[in-house]
């Protein structure tokens, strides 16, 4: 069941000025309840513009965006959407301002009808969800934390409002390999445990291949492809043309096929690639025996 519907969305920046730019042209897509959707596309393809429509931050120039049954152009009804669809921007840690981790995360909840006791519960749960120990971190200044920890504080600030959909724009940029993996595992955990639907914007195709249920690929403000990763990555030429890459296991599959080995399934992850190579070796051994 879709939780967000985007129908023929057009968005034009600086309309009527010499700087007019058509950012999105006739984009139709859905976000399904409970899924992990990756939005990919080169710089300037309209990814950030699209996700800012998902909670009504931007309103369509033409077309329609319906979030949880609410048309985002309906001012009154859309006013509450910021709580339902949480947006984590790029480098969110630069937006921290609280004197303590607690104060920062509690800012959103305190702007609702919640009383202090509820706020406290929400903060606790959010910190738990991003793996920050409540007692260890609550009174620390965010500015004494590492970049990865600061980013998790920023995420907790969004999660504290218990959004139905969590939208993240390049949440792993600038993190080291282990930090990146940990961050994505956490996000996947939120989705897997049914805490929220996830929309993740990323350039990293290895991450997309590993974590996405479904992908949306944008190019020049239009939808290039929409589908499951295995289908998306089965046509690398198309992705290369728009400046995206395929994960290396997919390249491995292609190179093996080109060398004449029968590889049926496209490998997307390193686990699958390992199996592929082992299978190929069995086939090779059999061929040698037959000779």
């Amino acid at each position: 069941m879709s939780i967000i519907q985007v129908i023929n969305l057009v968005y034009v920046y600086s309309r009527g000025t010499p700087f007019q730019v058509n950012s999105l042209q006739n984009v139709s897509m859905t976000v399904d309840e409970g899924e992990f959707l990756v939005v990919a596309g080169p710089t300037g393809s309209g990814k950030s513009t699209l996700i800012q429509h998902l909670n009504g931050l931007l309103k369509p120039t033409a077309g329609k965006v319906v979030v949880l049954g609410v048309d985002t152009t309906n001012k009154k009804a859309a006013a509450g959407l910021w709580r339902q669809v949480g947006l984590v921007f790029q480098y969110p840690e630069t937006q921290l301002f609280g004197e303590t981790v607690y104060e920062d995360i509690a800012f959103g909840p305190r702007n609702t009808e919640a009383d202090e006791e509820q706020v406290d519960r929400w903060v606790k749960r959010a910190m738990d969800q991003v793996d920050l120990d409540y007692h260890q971190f609550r009174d620390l200044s965010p500015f004494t934390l590492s970049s990865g920890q600061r980013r998790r504080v920023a995420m907790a600030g969004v999660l504290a409002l218990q959004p139905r959909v969590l939208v993240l724009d390049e949440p792993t940029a600038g993190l080291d390999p282990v930090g990146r993996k940990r961050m994505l595992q956490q996000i996947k955990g939120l989705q897997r445990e049914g805490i929220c639907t996830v929309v993740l914007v990323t350039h990293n195709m290895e991450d997309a291949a590993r974590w996405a249920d479904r992908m949306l690929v944008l190019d020049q403000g239009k939808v290039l492809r929409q589908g499951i990763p295995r289908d998306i990555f089965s046509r690398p030429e198309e992705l290369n043309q728009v400046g995206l890459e395929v994960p290396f296991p997919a390249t491995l599959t292609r190179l093996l096929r080109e060398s004449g080995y029968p590889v049926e399934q496209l490998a997307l992850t390193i686990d699958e690639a390992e199996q592929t190579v082992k299978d190929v070796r069995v086939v090779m051994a059999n061929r040698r025996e037959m000779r």
Partner: protein
Amino acid sequence: MVSIRDQALIRLSELTYIYNQGETGERTGIINISGDIYRGEWLAMIGSNGSGKSTLARHLNALLIPTSGTVEVDGLDTKVAENLWEIRRLVGMVFQNPDNQLVAALVEEDVAFGPENLGLPSLEVRLRVEQALTLMNLHDLRLRAPHLLSGGQKQRMAVAGVLAMRPLCMVLDEPSAMLDPAGRKDLMTTIGRLNREAGITVVLITHFMEEAVLANRIWVLHEGALVMAGTPREIFQQGSQLAAYNLELPGPAELAERLRRSGIHLPEGILTVEELVHSICQ
């Protein structure tokens, strides 16, 4: 013949840097690092967040001055105040966020900003801008507004701006962290050209192992110390060591390692998917 010792462009001797020394929030940034960065090489620095990479980078052009130990750039001690301007000219820096590095309304003006501030005759400035734009493949964009460029183009412009200063060395601190794959590839190609064709020494800080593979040498930093140094093939043969430093192997090297562990015979030092396929098919 010149010995390796004579080829050092930047020499670090027992370099230690402590943030907020003697105050609250005192912490060690880097600790007792000694090593040479050679003339004309491409050195990649890898390490987890907080390992001291950026702190070390900021010593290479005297943005930071050692708490103890010394940094010498082309024989100039960074501690000596009179050397500061020459060191800053010799070693240029490019940072992560391209939007924080724009200074002018047109690409060519942005690139001209540095040389103009050296007080050079305008003909010389023009010549340098011309060359820098050509080498960075920005000639067609020279009359565009920098803020309207793509991230990758902005970073190439930042590199061109440093290049116009005629530096000996360029230090790039995670320059591709905010770029898309095409922008990254493009930037790496131009960095390679900078290194090979213009002979500029490159120090590249990165979290992308496949970028580190492109370098001549790699330094690994961990908790402020220099813990490994070697060629990409040497470094990426030590997967378990890297894992202990919160790093990982490039994907194809990781897969090769796994296959070896399950008893498949593969040569050491595989770094790319092409190398891997080649050895599987033998």
